[in-house]
């Protein structure tokens, strides 16, 4: 029983981290209809900037601020300079440009900070909480991560569903021509979408960093699992991203704990296929009727 509780807690903690990345992917998908491979590179880069602040004696919160601010800037610049020219073109071209940006950022980080991974401080202690005399695989820092992810999810839901800005973002992404006719400044909306997604990504980076260390390729697996989580949940839904993340985290934890650690990545594949066979557009897909 202790084993099951702990595996579940470990799964939830991991899942929250996957969800953080998934939320950034959901945001950019909703706001620009692009699957952003550069997300992993961008959040790695902003986390390195934050690490530099911490390393030079800055506080955790100052570093977090630097990460978020640089995320906004990198996202906006990437959209303006690299993605704008391929917007409206074949969708795969945008994917390849983001892939190129990802490779470039990874190389740049390696050039600037080297390949040795570094530790990143947690906001709160990672010592587990005690329940009934046993230490649990759940620490105050894990609670902070889960809380932050829940907050971002709520904020995104409100943004998209309740605000005019969210409506404009979605309109610019789904039907740019019509949106333009309605007076939406489509270009500005797309830039904003990228900037906000990179902001969420940079928060995810800082939340993940203590458990995977900071290095040019340390976040790769997180991007893969984050993407998987977003697909499981449905790319259009922030709540789906979080549920997808938690499901995936728990599934991997059970596979690792009860079956074999060799099968963790295969387990992710199996979980994804199982969900997509039942719900081809993810768990939280909006019902879409196709009209002929």
């Amino acid at each position: 029983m202790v084993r099951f509780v702990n595996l579940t807690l470990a799964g939830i903690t991991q899942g929250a981290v996957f969800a953080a990345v998934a939320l950034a992917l959901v945001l950019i998908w909703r706001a620009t209809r692009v699957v952003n491979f550069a997300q992993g590179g961008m959040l790695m880069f902003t986390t390195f900037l934050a690490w530099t602040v911490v390393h030079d004696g800055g506080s955790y919160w100052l570093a977090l601020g630097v990460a978020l601010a640089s995320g906004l800037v990198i996202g906006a610049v990437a959209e303006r300079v690299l993605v704008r020219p391929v917007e409206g073109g074949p969708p795969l071209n945008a994917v390849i440009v983001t892939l190129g940006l990802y490779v470039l950022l990874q190389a740049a980080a390696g050039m600037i900070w080297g390949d040795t991974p570094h530790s990143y401080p947690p906001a709160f202690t990672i010592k587990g909480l005690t329940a009934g005399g046993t230490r649990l695989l759940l620490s105050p820092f894990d609670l902070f991560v889960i809380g932050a992810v829940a907050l971002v999810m709520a904020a995104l839901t409100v943004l998209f569903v309740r605000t005019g800005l969210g409506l404009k973002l979605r309109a610019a992404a789904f039907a740019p021509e019509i949106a333009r006719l309605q007076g939406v400044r489509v270009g500005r909306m797309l830039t904003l979408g990228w900037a906000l997604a990179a902001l969420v990504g940079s928060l995810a980076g800082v939340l993940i960093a203590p458990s995977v260390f900071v290095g040019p390729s340390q976040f790769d697996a997180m991007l893969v699992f984050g993407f998987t989580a977003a697909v499981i949940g449905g790319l259009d839904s922030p709540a789906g991203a979080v549920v997808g993340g938690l499901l995936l985290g728990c599934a991997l934890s059970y596979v690792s704990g009860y079956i074999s650690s060799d099968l963790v990545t295969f387990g992710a594949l199996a979980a994804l296929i199982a969900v997509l066979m039942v719900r081809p557009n993810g768990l939280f897909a909006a019902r879409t009727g196709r009209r002929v």
Partner: protein
Amino acid sequence: MTAAVLAAAASGCGGSGDDSGSSAPGVTATTVTIGSHQPLTGPAAPGYSANSAASKAFFDYVNAHGGVHGRKIVYKYVDDAYNPTQTVSVVQKLVLQDKVFAVFNGLGTPTHSKVVDYLNAQRVPDLFVASGCGCWDEPKKHPQTFGWQVDYIREGKILGDHIQKTYPGKKVAYFYQNDDFGQDGVKGLDKYVPSGQVVSRQSYQPGATDVSAQVQAIAQAKADVVVLFSIPTYTALFRLAALKLDYKPTFVVSNVGSDPITLDGLLESFAKSGGTKLQGSPLIQGMVTDGYLSSPGDASNSWIQLFRKIHDQYIPKLPFNGNIVYGMSAAYTFVQALQNAGRNPTRKSLVDGLEKTKLTGPGLIPFAFSAQSHAGYTGAQIGVIKGDVVVPQGQPLTTDDGDGPIQPYTAPQPQAPASGVPAGG
């Protein structure tokens, strides 16, 4: 007609310039070109990318001090991203296009095992493979290939022997990487640790993002001693998960995963007390490990003094850790081997020299090199982490990778030469 004569003369000149007493590929009057495949990017780059930079720095230092028999060593290391397909490609490039004299310190078992046959078929000396697989020591099948670091089975035996003697009757758990590194290590451990004492065996997949399930299983089995055959990032992840669970066993960590400087870098954020920079993370104090080279934090050691001097001059930006000491030590051994190959080295004289001459070098332990054995260091010495130094315990130990006994080795570690360049043979 004139043109033909000129062409012949020119090619003649080129030929004699290249040869100058040695007809070996990659050797000219002024240079010896060697190559290597290294993970400069990709999954194994963290940590291991520094090895080749350190070797290069040592060769540059030797070149600046006259080279070997007047020749400068040109070290071409190429990225293979730890992908065997790329290893094959870059090694063929080094052999066919760059015409290297020898391949030096190619890194990794999954990678290098795919070029061993090729290098031996081409009769290219394949020296000091950077991996502790016992498979490099097959002089009949692979006469050109030589290991260097102590293999994982020997290391497992020595650690297992220590555990059996020091912690009799205690519960032991294994945490190992699920490849030949971890599996060979466990083979060695199992030769000494009584099977009844082992209460949990957990493995992890390189690339996994979370090991808390395994740590929790080991903690639940209430093991008193945990043996880690893991790379540094997973040693650190294990340590952090143990901290989370308030689980405080005795840690016994293989050489690969126990470099205190690297672990400090991975754990420093979790161990700050009042913002003061600590000398060595409290999270790694008392870890038991084994070593066959000098510990990078040991400032009084003559080898560390030498290597640090070269590091500060050539590669000051890289952290001075176990990988730097490893790369420079391997380069030192190569310089010795090249000196033994004679004034006009050939591929044959290089291999023969290694089989005939006993090298003594940076390590605490002798090499096994002979016509019958191409294994490198034959053992290690147990040590305990204090501060950021591995403090040696007892005597260096040597053994074989079979069922042979473990024996103490009594000769002291040789001093580094004052010039830094091995005395010429």
